[in-house]
């Protein structure tokens, strides 16, 4: 009897393996779990040492401060070692370049080395309208109106040609993406290149600018009425009845409540804490290095 019981338990375990986050990606791939087993296997001649996680607990605001350290949640592209190597590169770059925290809606000034410009550098000021990607692929877009024409530039955050990132005004907007500024009055996306930075006291909460803009006449760049935007009003003036009905038809209000979907598309707390504590440890290490450097410069 006991043999059968064990066989039953064994079958359950095998059952578990095919679901427990180690699902096979394609027919010609390894299970995640088996690969991890082999990396740390005793029989391996160059096996990886099990690393103890740093005892530090990252501050709570780190998740908002450093969102680009959290990897892509697409499980088909994930790998532990790749993410670790990527994070190392990011931290190395951050030790050289000071990258302050900013959000879509805050006003930035970016200085880039440019081989064609007279001083070999180029400075651009604008409002951050989107922040995309994660890891080394993080990018953001700045928008400004220069000489009555809208200009947008996409910057890669970890590009080695970026010399300086200045935050002139730190604030948030009601939406995560502000592409609708393209169809609003140009005065809302006009910023002076010689603008003086607004000081943000350290530790204070980030102010939310709850300005609601009026959208311009059609044609629009995108179908704004289908996007549930909070920072825009006056959309109904420009819509016909057919379009309103279509918008109702295509809306998916239940998608907001699909909690397993949000769980699968995000990185859960335990994992993000583990990643951010690593970042925190490295930051502390860098600070110590800086403090030690100061007396050296005095000599």
């Amino acid at each position, binding site marked *: 009897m006991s*043999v*059968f019981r*064990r*066989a*039953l*338990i*064994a*079958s359950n*375990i*095998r059952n578990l393996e095919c679901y427990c986050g180690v699902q096979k*990606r*394609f*027919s*010609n*791939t*390894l299970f*995640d779990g*088996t*690969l991890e087993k*082999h*990396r740390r*296997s*005793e*029989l*391996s*001649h*160059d*096996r*990886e040492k099990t690393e103890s996680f740093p005892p530090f607990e990252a501050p709570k605001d780190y998740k908002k401060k450093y969102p680009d350290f959290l990897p892509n949640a697409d499980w*088909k*592209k*994930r*790998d532990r*070692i*790749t993410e670790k*190597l*990527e994070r190392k*590169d*990011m931290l*190395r*770059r951050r*030790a*050289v*370049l000071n990258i302050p925290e900013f959000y879509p809606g805050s006003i930035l000034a970016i200085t880039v*080395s*440019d*081989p064609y410009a007279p*001083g*070999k550098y180029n400075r651009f000021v604008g409002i951050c309208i989107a922040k995309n990607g994660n*890891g*080394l*692929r993080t990018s953001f877009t700045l928008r400004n109106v220069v000489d009555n024409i809208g200009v947008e530039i996409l910057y*890669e955050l*970890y*590009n*080695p*040609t*970026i*010399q300086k990132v200045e935050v002139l005004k730190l604030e948030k907007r009601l939406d995560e993406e502000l592409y609708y500024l393209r169809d609003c009055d140009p005065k809302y996306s006009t910023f002076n290149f010689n603008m003086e930075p607004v000081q943000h006291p350290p530790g204070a909460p980030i102010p939310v600018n709850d300005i609601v803009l009026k959208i311009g006449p059609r044609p629009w760049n995108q179908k704004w009425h289908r996007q549930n935007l909070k920072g825009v009003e006056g959309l109904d003036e420009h819509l016909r009845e057919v379009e309103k009905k279509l918008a109702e038809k295509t809306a998916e209000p239940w998608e907001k409540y699909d909690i397993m979907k949000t769980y699968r598309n995000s990185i859960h707390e335990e994992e993000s804490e583990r990643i951010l504590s690593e970042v925190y440890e490295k930051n502390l290490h860098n600070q110590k290095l800086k403090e030690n450097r100061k007396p050296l410069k005095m000599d």
Partner: protein
Amino acid sequence: MSAIQRCSKLFSNNLCRTIINIEIRSSISDYKSFAGSRPKKVKNRFDPPEWFVPKKAYNYFDNLTPSNRDFLKEVAYDRYITNRESPLVDEPIKRNTWNPCTKRTGVLGVKIGVLPQWTKDGTKLFTTLVQIIDNHVIRYVPPEDYKQSSAATLYMKNRNYGSVVVGALSCYPTSFTKSYVNLFNEAGVPPKRKLTRFLVTPDAAIEPGTPLTAKHFNVGDYVDVQARTIGHGFQGVVKRWGFKGGPKSHGATKWHRRPGTIASGGRTGLIYKGKKMPGKMGNRWRNHRGLKIWRINYKYNVLYLTGPATPGPTHSYIRIYDTILPNLKKEMTSKEVHPPMPTAYPEDFSEGLPEEVFDDELFQFNDPTLMYNLDEK
């Protein structure tokens, strides 16, 4: 339908299914007994060749008590690690120098992802990361013997190539059949999950049991890559070949994703060979040649190769070997440092290794920000 499968319909519970699993697994694993059950055996196209060794065995490991399981692990560890008779202790094969005509062995890696990197002129490039986990040489067959074996094709018989079998990912021997585990006796390494074969010239002969790591390659060299592409299953003509299909509306009935005519009538009245049709898409062997090694991580044995377009999904096997492209070979010969022959041994790195090595043109993230020189135009 076998009697066991039929009974699964009648007494369908979990216990019964496990027993069926055992039956089916054992029948597959012990191939000979399965074949022996038929008195008259007709040779089939899908039958395995004579030298085929059945690999998978029923995993009795789960049914053991934990203490017994640990004991078996200890025995395997003692045999393969602590009391291992290293084949390298014997008189090693003579090491030759590298020349452009030599073909060295390759390695069997696992693709682990794609990352962007930047060069020192500020241009961005995507690199594929390949990890080399636990590779060993399992067997070397010199050209004279290899030509006479049944596995050699006409191509191999006309050329003077020996064969090297390389294995990756060591396992405990309990999960494999006895005949499969015995393949690794010569090398004295634990049985491997995956095996491949590379053809080598006789001057690159290598002893069984030699470990292969990321040190096998130098930064700045060029490699070729072989892997299976992402499998998409059975697909229609629109996804597989990019046909246009039909209109979505305007009175189209059942004519949205169809191929149209496949041949004309008249004199020929036949469909040409190679006509693009629905079928299984992907999961085929594909080559990618002339990829540069930009960066090597010795701590985790990771290579950074050019391009996001290396075949296969993440966590798939990938074969890597020196390039065969003549122009890139010339470039490699003109360099001062040639690839290690037949592979890098630990005595070559007695001074110790850095954690990472970069190509000269690649930007390191420790470096200061790229500035352009004011004098340049």
